[in-house]
C-alpha cells in the first residue's frame, strides 16, 4: 500500500496525534445525532415500573391530552377463558402512526408494550398478551398530530398472572 505524501513525511508520533484528533472531532460531530436518537427511541423504563394506569399514562405522556378516536379498532375476544394468552389485533386507519401503546387497566404492570414504527406502512399490529383479570384494554396511538385512544373491555375467566 502507498502512503500519502503527507503521512509518509510525518513522524509516527504526529500520525498518532492526528488519529486521536480525528476521533475526537468525529465524536463531537456524531454525538448530538446519537443523543437525539437515544432520546426518541429509548425504552419507557419509568412507565414499565408503574402499577397504576394513571401513573403509567403520566409517565408516558405527561400532561398531553389523549382523544378517543374511531379509527382505532381493537380486535380481541370479549370473553378470554385463559388470561395467560389473549390474542389481540389493533387496526388503525390513522396516517403517520409513530407508536402504538397497549395497556391493560387491571394488570400489575399496566403497560404491556410500546411499538415504535419508524417507517410508514403498517396499518395494524397483532400479538398475544397476558391479562391478570377482567379489565379494559386501552390502546393509545401516537402520531405527529397528537395522541388518540380506544378501549375494549375483556372478561377473563382464569387470570394469566402465573409466575
Amino acid at each position, binding site marked *: 500500500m502507498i502512503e500519502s505524501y503527507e503521512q509518509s513525511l510525518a513522524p509516527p508520533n504526529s500520525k498518532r496525534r492526528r488519529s486521536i484528533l480525528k476521533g475526537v472531532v468525529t465524536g463531537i460531530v456524531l454525538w448530538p445525532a446519537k443523543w437525539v436518537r437515544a432520546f426518541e427511541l429509548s425504552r419507557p423504563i419509568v412507565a*414499565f415500573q408503574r402499577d397504576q394506569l394513571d401513573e403509567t399514562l403520566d409517565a408516558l405522556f405527561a400532561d398531553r391530552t389523549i382523544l378517543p378516536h374511531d379509527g382505532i379498532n381493537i380486535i380481541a375476544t370479549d370473553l378470554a377463558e385463559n388470561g395467560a394468552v389473549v390474542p389481540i389485533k389493533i387496526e388503525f386507519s390513522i396516517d403517520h402512526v409513530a407508536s402504538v401503546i397497549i395497556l391493560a387497566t387491571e394488570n400489575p404492570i399496566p403497560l404491556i408494550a410500546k411499538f415504535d414504527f419508524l*417507517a410508514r406502512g403498517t396499518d395494524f399490529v397483532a400479538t398475544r398478551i397476558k391479562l391478570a383479570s377482567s379489565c379494559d384494554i386501552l390502546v393509545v396511538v401516537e402520531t405527529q398530530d397528537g395522541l388518540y385512544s380506544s378501549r375494549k373491555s375483556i372478561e377473563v375467566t382464569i387470570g394469566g398472572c402465573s409466575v
Partner: protein
Amino acid sequence: MRLQLRGGEVTVRALIRHPMAIGGRLKSGVVIAAHFITEVTCTHNGTVVMRAHWGPGIAKNPYLSFVVGHASSGDELIIRWIDNIGESDEFKTKI
C-alpha cells in the same frame, strides 16, 4: 418468521420461543427469576422500521405481526430480540 408480499408491502408474522416469565415466588416457596423479552426490532434492508418495547405482559412464546411498506422481492428482513438477562437472537430472511 413468515412473510407475505402483496402490492409492495410485506406482512410479517413472527413467532419467538421464549418463556416470558414475570418472576416471583411459587406457592411452594420456589423463587423464579423474571425472564422476558424487552426489545424487538425489525430491520428492512439495514434500516430499523419497527422497534417494540415489551414488558412481561406479553404472552409466553410471543407472536408478532405487522406490515412493512415499500418492500420488494429480494429485500432483506431481520428480526432481533433481546431479553432482560441479555440473551438475544435474530432471524434473517429474504423476501
